[in-house]
């Protein structure tokens, strides 16, 4: 899918597993670099989705970040130790 051409410099956590990443890159890009395309299941039908645009327009890259639901992964920048996971359908409050 994708291959990194720059070295990574930190680790993040995705769905319980550790993934390498670069501080300051978009979370969505870090996930794609690690081969992750399944970011969420939709609230409408439970269908698997991943990012489309990576620029904050499509809202398909919604994930959970540090316990907050429905966050656009393309608008969150990686910091070392960031914890994130898939958005499973509709969020609760």
């Amino acid at each position, binding site marked *: 899918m994708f291959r990194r051409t720059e070295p990574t410099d930190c680790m993040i956590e995705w769905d319980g597993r550790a993934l390498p990443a670069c501080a300051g890159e978009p979370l969505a890009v870090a996930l794609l670099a690690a081969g992750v395309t399944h970011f969420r299941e939709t*609230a*409408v039908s439970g269908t698997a989705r991943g990012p489309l645009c990576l620029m904050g327009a499509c809202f398909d890259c919604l994930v959970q970040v540090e316990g*907050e639901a*429905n966050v656009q992964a393309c608008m969150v920048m990686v910091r070392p130790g960031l914890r994130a996971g898939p958005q499973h359908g*509709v*969020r*609760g*409050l």
Partner: protein
Amino acid sequence: MTDDAFDIAVLGGGMLGSAIGWGCAAAGARVAVLDEGDVALRAARGNFGLVWSQGKGDGMPPYAAWTRRSLAAWPALAERVSGLAGRDVGYRPVGGLVFCLGEAELSERRQTVQRLHNQGQDGVQVLDRAQLQALMPHCPLGPEVTGASYQPADGHADPLTLLRGFKAGLLAAGAAMLNGASVTSIVRDDRGFVVTRSDGSQVRAGKIVIAGGLGTPALAAQVGLAVPVRPVRGQNIVTERLAPLLPLPASAIRQTTDGTIQIGVTSEDDGSDAPLTRSEDLAGMAARAVRVLPDLARARIIRTWGALRPMTPDGFPAYAQSDSHPGAFVAVCHSAVTLAAVHAGPLAQGILAGALPDSLAALHPRRLEGMTGHVPAH
């Protein structure tokens, strides 16, 4: 371009016009529903979705009775229209609340409920905080919530599905849906009515129903009826979809069948017909909603809109048949979801029979003569 004569031409394809039109078409009449374009000044996409009797007709018992009659007929309507829409209209008669913050609001609400009891509306109760919380155990109330008034017979539905159901029903019954032009003139001759439109077309019908919402005054004047109506804006907020948390609707907060939380509703009577939203007003609505249900603070706003209610000076509906133009009817209200059942039922039947139900006499617009002043939406 002249169409063959219809039995009924409904001028206005919003919630009210569509309900009346469908009621007539389902009874076998040849119906045409005339509507404007995509961005006409519409109330019928701004409905909050309440099916509500609480507080209705305060000071106008015939309206309270008309409302109760509609609630009683709503379950049957919901079943029929869900079938037509191919989707559940989402009617949930789970009760309805008006939240109170602080002692003063609760005390004022008690007085209002007492007055309603005195008018025969005894289905409304006042709940204290504990009783209220018991109705919604998984939805913590904010610390300032003192209680609420509660009408167990009330509820809510999905207004857009309802409207779509009416449209589908009209199509299925062979009604003509004539969209994309406004009415320029209404003329009565010995064969009935000729309605001319902005695209040059003409529609001929034995009877007409003016259901033009905010366009009512100009159209009604053409058939000798004075029906003052002005736009009263209500701003709405809708959130992202959420897991079920609010089991019954309140007058200003409800959770829809899609899981979104809908918050209303301001009542702005500034003469403007701009369907706009203002951050200052929205902030106030959001602030109150969060005071009532603090968990909502984390919910994201996806959309806002400013709905324009067609409001008569006293806030009650107006129904009439023209004396100077018999066969021309007018209907206007701001609770077209609640009243959908009676509009599709006895009102449509009355129109077909040539006479409105006697129970609507008090709602004739002649009562509005000389009335000014703003009445808060209810």
